[in-house]
């Protein structure tokens, strides 16, 4: 291998490729590398970014969660309705966490104890929870009464909007959890070889329940921030979020076969998704062509990642 190849296809290959792509985009696309656009870009990936943190755990443990979009909508809804009813934003937040956590817990228990395939379970809860959100709101968006709720999303710290800080914290915390804690290693172990992990004494079902419950809680946070940004609880919010989040994770090198994940990768994946969207709009690419471009980027990114794995000589 030449040293260039080594760099591109090495451990940090994805990051290198990303950096190169970023530089090219920054130089060629007008208005891209401005502070405003960067902040806008980061804000646009807050929901995906936050949810990707726990989706990474889910995928790494060889599971799957399709219900995230519905959970984000449902818990955002819950936050708005509860805070409208009680007049307290805190109560709204708690309501959201309870709802999100509950959905996650149910997912986890059904998957771990009744041993139902995660894809199917969450496909089912995806619909059930969406139904709840619609029933609760009678299918209509619920406006936020207390304007200070908007401040969650509008407030800034050191010139950077709060949601971006929140996302950053999540990246740090979950990166640490993945690499440095028993929880993280057990997650990877379960994904790599569930049978071996069980026989080594890892409580696989508890782990799975925890991962899903965490996913639910994190969705609740994303839901609250989203509601605050769009100043209302929307029963139809975040449809299709699941696929974007999974795409971001996979772009970031998380293996759908379990056992392989890295926070830096996921961050890069999330950014790729955001940048693609951003650049297409900056370049005024026609809506229908955007579909095609989005698909091609996805393909290309995993293809590159695959070359990388092949070069690293991993056995599938």
């Amino acid at each position, binding site marked *: 291998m030449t040293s260039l190849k080594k760099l591109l296809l090495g451990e940090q290959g994805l990051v290198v490729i990303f950096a190169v792509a970023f530089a090219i985009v920054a130089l060629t696309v*007008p*208005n891209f590398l*401005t502070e*405003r*656009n960067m*902040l*806008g*870009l980061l*804000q*646009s990936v807050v*929901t995906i970014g936050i949810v990707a943190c726990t989706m990474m755990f889910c995928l790494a443990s060889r599971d799957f969660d399709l219900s995230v979009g519905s959970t984000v909508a449902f818990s955002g809804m819950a936050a708005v309705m509860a805070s409208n009813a009680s007049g307290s934003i805190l109560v709204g937040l708690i309501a959201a966490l309870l709802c999100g956590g509950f959905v996650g817990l149910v997912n986890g228990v059904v998957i771990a104890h009744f041993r139902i395939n995660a894809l199917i379970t969450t496909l089912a809860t995806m619909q059930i929870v969406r139904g709840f959100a*619609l029933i609760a709101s009678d*299918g*209509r*968006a*619920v*406006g*936020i*009464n207390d304007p200070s709720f*908007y401040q969650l999303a*509008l407030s800034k710290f050191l010139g950077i909007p709060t949601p971006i800080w929140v996302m950053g914290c999540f990246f740090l915390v979950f990166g640490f959890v993945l690499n440095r804690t028993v929880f993280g290693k057990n997650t990877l172990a379960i994904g790599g070889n569930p049978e071996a992990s069980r026989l080594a004494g890892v409580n696989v079902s508890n782990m799975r329940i925890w991962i899903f419950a965490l996913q639910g809680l994190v969705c609740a946070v994303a839901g609250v921030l*989203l509601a605050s*940004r*769009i*100043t*209302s609880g*929307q*029963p*139809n*919010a*975040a*449809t299709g979020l699941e696929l974007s989040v999974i795409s971001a994770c996979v772009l970031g090198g998380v293996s759908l076969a379990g056992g392989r994940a890295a926070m830096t990768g996921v961050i890069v994946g999330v950014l790729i998704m955001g940048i693609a*969207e*951003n650049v297409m*709009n*900056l370049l*005024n690419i*026609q*809506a*229908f062509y*955007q579909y095609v471009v989005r698909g091609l980027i996805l393909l290309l990114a995993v293809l590159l990642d695959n070359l990388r794995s092949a070069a690293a000589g991993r056995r599938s």
Partner: protein
Amino acid sequence: ADVKIGFIVKQPEEPWFQDEWKFADVAAKEKGFTLVKIGAEDGEKVQSAIDNLGAQGAQGFIVCTPDVKLGPGIVAKAAANDLKLMTVDDRLVNADGSPIEDVPHMGISATKIGEAVGQALVDEIKKRGWDMKDVGAIRVSYDQLPTAVDRVEGALSVLKANGFPEANIFDAPQAKTDTEAALNASTIVLNKNAGIKKWVAIGLNDEAVLGAVRATETVGIAPDSMIGVGIGGADSAINEFKKPAATGFFGTVIISPKRHGYETALNMYEWIANGKEPEKLTLTAGQLALRDNYEAVRKDLGIE
């Protein structure tokens, strides 16, 4: 400076919005400004789209929002990015549901379009000399979309006001907003009420009503025993009128994408370039088009 205007729509795949964009482009050519077209299917996408427009130095934008309750957020975002804001088709509302009157709007109220549909149905029922008691109404519904509810309810209110029996209205909930889903749901309604031989159908758009029409065809109800009136008037409806033999798709209420697209873009341009603020509220009328007059109606509305 160069004028740059954004045009954000909620469902770029819908022909209606393709038309709006097309006519806005005409205005852009005429006046020599740049038009940035962005599709934004949900609240989050709208937010990023506005940021994006701000970042590329646009001075204003027109939006058809995915949800009217997004109002305060959109207004705040526009202000934060120092962008002039106009809405088209759907009018923004506050948290309490009252319209945000500061934002210039061009559109037609969903309820009004619905009422036009209802009126068309009532007129045709009377013309054919049907007894309302013998007629069933298929309400192809997609209740998770508020505008859809408003339109359908608007139509029903006119029907009921003219003595259409409430008991003869049957819900056919579509699982998705495509023709196949409407077709499947309507088929069940028809089969469940095999005794009723004359039908009318309403829905959120042409595709929904077409589904009901197809359903009558599959269960063998003759075209002249069916009156479907859609909303939109784009190709799906025109295709139906072009068919050699008349079908149960009686007519469609066409709203003018030309006015909505061309005029809003023009107004926004004037606002930015010449400081001429547009009317706060412009309501356009829907116009009923039938098999034999659709070409004239379209010409009238300036489409084609």
